[in-house]
C-alpha cells in the first residue's frame, strides 16, 4: 500500500484556492492533449515519400500510416523488382501489426501519468517523448535493410549498387529523385512529444513542492 503511495505520490489537497489549483491543472491538460494527439495520429500518415522521374509527370507516392502502406505501392514494387528489392509490404510487418495497440498503450500511459505525482511520472511519459525518434529510427533501419539486400540476380543488379535511402530529405536512385518527409501523423506525434516535455516541466513545478512538503 505504501509502495504504491510512494510511486503515485501525494494527492492534491482539497482546500486550495482556485488560483492554486490552476497550477495542478496545467500538466493534467498537457498530458491529456498529448494522449488525444497520439490517438488522432493513428488515422493520419506518418511518413511520405515522393519519387520524381520524367516518365511520371505526377510522381509516385508512398504514404506510410502507423499500420499500413498506401499509394503507388504496386507500381513502386514493380520498379523495384528491376533492382531486386523486396516488395515494400514485407517491411516492418511486426511493427505494423502492433502499432495501433502500441500507440493506444502510449496514450493510456500518458493518461496514467496524470495520476502519478512523483518523479516516476517520467517513466510513463518517456515512451511518448521518444516515440517519433523511435519511429524514424525503425524506418531508417528498414530502408537500410531493403536498400542493402538487393537480389543479385535482378535485371539491373549490375547497374544499381546497394544503397540506403534517407529517412528524411532527398536522394537519387537511378533516374528517380526521392523526397521523404514526415506526414501529419508524425507531426502530431512530435507535438505530443513536445507537449509531454512541457507537461513534465509543469508537473515538476506543481508537484515537487507537494512531494517535498509531504516527505
Amino acid at each position, binding site marked *: 500500500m505504501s509502495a504504491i503511495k510512494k510511486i503515485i505520490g501525494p494527492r492534491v489537497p482539497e482546500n486550495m484556492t482556485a488560483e492554486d489549483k490552476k497550477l495542478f491543472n496545467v500538466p493534467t491538460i498537457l498530458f491529456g492533449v498529448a494522449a488525444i494527439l497520439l490517438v488522432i495520429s493513428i488515422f493520419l500518415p506518418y511518413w511520405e515519400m515522393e519519387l520524381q522521374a520524367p516518365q511520371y509527370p505526377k510522381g509516385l507516392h508512398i504514404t506510410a500510416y502507423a499500420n499500413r502502406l498506401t499509394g503507388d505501392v504496386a507500381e513502386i514494387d*514493380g520498379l523495384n523488382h528491376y533492382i531486386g528489392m523486396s516488395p515494400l509490404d514485407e517491411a516492418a510487418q511486426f511493427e505494423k501489426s502492433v502499432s495501433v495497440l502500441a500507440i493506444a498503450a502510449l496514450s493510456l500511459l500518458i493518461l496514467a501519468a496524470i495520476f502519478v505525482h512523483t518523479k516516476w511520472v517520467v517513466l510513463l511519459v518517456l515512451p511518448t517523448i521518444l516515440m517519433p525518434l523511435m519511429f524514424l529510427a525503425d524506418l531508417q533501419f528498414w530502408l537500410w535493410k531493403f536498400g542493402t539486400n538487393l537480389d543479385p540476380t535482378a535485371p539491373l543488379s549490375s547497374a544499381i549498387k546497394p544503397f540506403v535511402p534517407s529517412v528524411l530529405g532527398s536522394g537519387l536512385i537511378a533516374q528517380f529523385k526521392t*523526397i521523404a518527409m514526415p506526414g501529419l501523423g508524425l507531426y502530431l506525434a512530435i507535438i505530443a512529444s*513536445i507537449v509531454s*516535455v512541457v507537461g513534465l516541466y509543469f508537473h515538476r513545478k506543481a508537484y515537487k513542492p507537494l512531494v517535498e512538503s509531504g516527505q
Partner: protein
Amino acid sequence: MKLQKNRMSRSVTTGIVIILLIVVISIMASCNDNGGATGSESTTADTAGVSNDAMAIAEARGLTPDDIAAALKTYTPSGVHDEYIMFASGGHGGQVYVIGMPSMRIIKQIAVFTPEPWQGYGYGAEGTMEVLAGGNVGESDLTWGDTHHPALSETDGDYDGQFLFINDKANGRVAVIDLKDFETKQLVKNPIALGDHGGTFVVPDTEWVIEGGQYGAPLGWEYASLDDYNEAYRGMITFWKFDREAGRIDTDASFAIELPPYWQDLCDAGKLASDGWVFCNSFNTERATGGVEDGNPPFEAGASQNDMDFLHVIDKNKAIEVAAAGKTMDVQGFPVISLQTAIDEGLLYFVPEPKSPHGVDVTPDGKFLTISGKLDPHVSIYSFQKIQDAIAAGSFEYDDYGVPIIAFDDAVEAQVEVGLGPLHTQYDDKGYAYTSLFLEPAVARWTLGGDFSDLHEEEDWTLVTKTPVQYNVGHIAAAEGDTVSPDGRFLVSMNKWAIDRFANVGPLLPQNFQLLDIGEGGANMPVLYDLPIPDGEPHYAQIIKADKLSPWEVYPEVGWNPHTNSVDPNVVQLGEERVERNGNEVEIWMTAVRSHFTPEHVEIKQGDHVIWHITNVERAYDATHGFSIPYYNINLSIEPGEATTFEFDATEDGVFSYYCTEFCSALHLEMTGYMLIEPSE
C-alpha cells in the same frame, strides 16, 4: 540528496528537449530541401543559330504578318493541351480521327469498322472480334466501312462527352464508341437496308440515334426488278434506341419507318422549339433508275430533273407511340411502321426543297432549318413554326404515295444567295451561320434572323463574307456548331483532296482539313492551318470542348473487360497464373507486367484447341502491353488493368515466340516467351 534528485531530473529534461530540437530542426531542414528543389529550374531563351528576334525568324521564313497571327493562334507548346477535340470521320478508312484544336494535331485514331492492329482490334481479342462480328451482314464478314457522320451524345441538346456514334454508309451500320476509353463497343447492322447515309444524328437527350437511308431498295435486303422500282423499292429511316446506362444500342427497342423510294440524304433532329421532330432531306424524287448503258439518262441527269425535292418532316414522338402500340410490320424480325401507317397516323409530311439538297441543319434555338440545294445557289431557311401552322391548317397536296405536301411558300422563312454548290451549314454564338460552297470552293458566313437578329450588326438573312478554301469542301464543323449553344471560336473546312497544299505523294491525294478562325464577326474569317488526313474522304466531324471529356487513365480495376464493363470472370491476378489441360483443350491464364509474361513457357500439342486469357495487372498510366503470336495472326493491345481472351486451333507445330509489341520498359525486348507446339506424330 534532494539536491541531487533535482539536478538529475533537470538534466533528463534538458536532454529530452535537446533531442526534440534536433528532430524538429532536421525535419525543417528536409522541408527546406523540397522547396529548394522545386524552384531550382530556370530556362533561358536561346534559339540556337538564329537571331533571338522573332521578326528575323519570320523574315527568314518568308512569313507575312497574317501568317504570324495564324501561327500565334494555333501554336500549342509541348505539353500544353488543346482547348477543343474534334472527332472526324476517316471516310472509307472505316475509322474515326481524334484531333486537337487549334493545334490540329492528330491525337488518336479509333478503330471502328476496320480491324486495326495497334489497338488489337480484330486480331484475336474476343471482345473486339464480337464487336466486329456484330456488324457482319448475314454470312459476310466485313472488314471495312465508309464512316460518314459522327454524332456526340447530348444532354439537353449540348454535347456531354460520353459517347460517340458513327455510321457506315456502304453497309448500313451504326457504331457506338465509349469515350471513357475511346473504344468501339458495338456495331449494329440495319436489318432492313443494306446501305445508309442520313446517320448518325442524336435527339437532344440521346435516347434515340437516327440512321436515315439513301439508295432505294426493297426492304429487308430482298430482290426486286428495277422495273418494279415504284412498287417494290423503298426508302427508310431507323430509330435506334440508345440505353445510356448500358452504353449500348438496344436493338430490341428500336424501329424504322418505311418511306417512299426517294433517296433520303441527311437528317437532323429538332431541338428546343422543334424537339420531338426529325428532318431529312431527299433527292431523286424523280425515282430515276439509271441504265445509261441502255440509252436511259444516267442517274446524275435522271435524278436532277425536278426543281424541287422533298424535305421529310417526321413527328418522332408520335412515331415512338405508334411503334410502341405495335402498329408495325415485321421486316427481318424488325418492327417497321409502314408508309401507309405513317401517313394515316400523321407521322410524315413533305415540304418541297430546292433541287438535290445535301444538308438540313437546325438552328441552335430549334426554330429554323437551313436547307442547301447543291444545284441552287441559295440556302433556304424554313420556319418550324410555319411548318407546324401548315400541318394544323391541313391544306395539303399529296405525292404519288399519298404523303401530305406542305406548300413551299407556307414553310419558307427566307432564302439567302450564298454562292455555288451550297452543302452544309453550321452555327456560332454571334448570330451567324456558315455554309460550305463545294463549287467555289469557299465557306460563306451569313446572318440569321429571328431571335438571332440582335447578335450581329448586319441585316438579317444576308451574306456577310466568304473565305476561299483549298479545295473541294464538303462538310464543315464549327466548335459545338450543331448544338443548342455553339462556341463560335473555330471552324474546320473538310476538303477533299489537297491538290497542291502538301508535297506530292503520288496520284492518290490526302484530304485537307483547314482551320478557320471565326472568333471575330464581320468580314474577317481567315484560314489558320492545313492538316493533311492520310485516309478516306472525311465527311463530317464534331468538335467538343476538351474539358467535357473525362476518359479513364487506366481501367478502373485489374481484370476489367472493356466489353462487359465489369471485372472479367477470367481475370488473372499475380500468382494465379496457370495452364490447364482438359482433353484436347488447353486453357492458359497469364499475367503481363513489366517486363515479363507469366508463364514464359507454354507447351501445346498440335491439334489442341487453345483458350488464352491475359490480364495486364499494371496500374500505371502508361503501362500498356501488347501480345503477339506469329503465324496465328494474334495481336492484342492490353491496356493497364485490362483482361482479354483469345482462342485458336493449334494447327501448325513449331516454336513460336510471343512478345510484347509495346515498348513498355527498358527490358521490353526481354518481355517474351516460347509457345512450343509439339507435332502430333
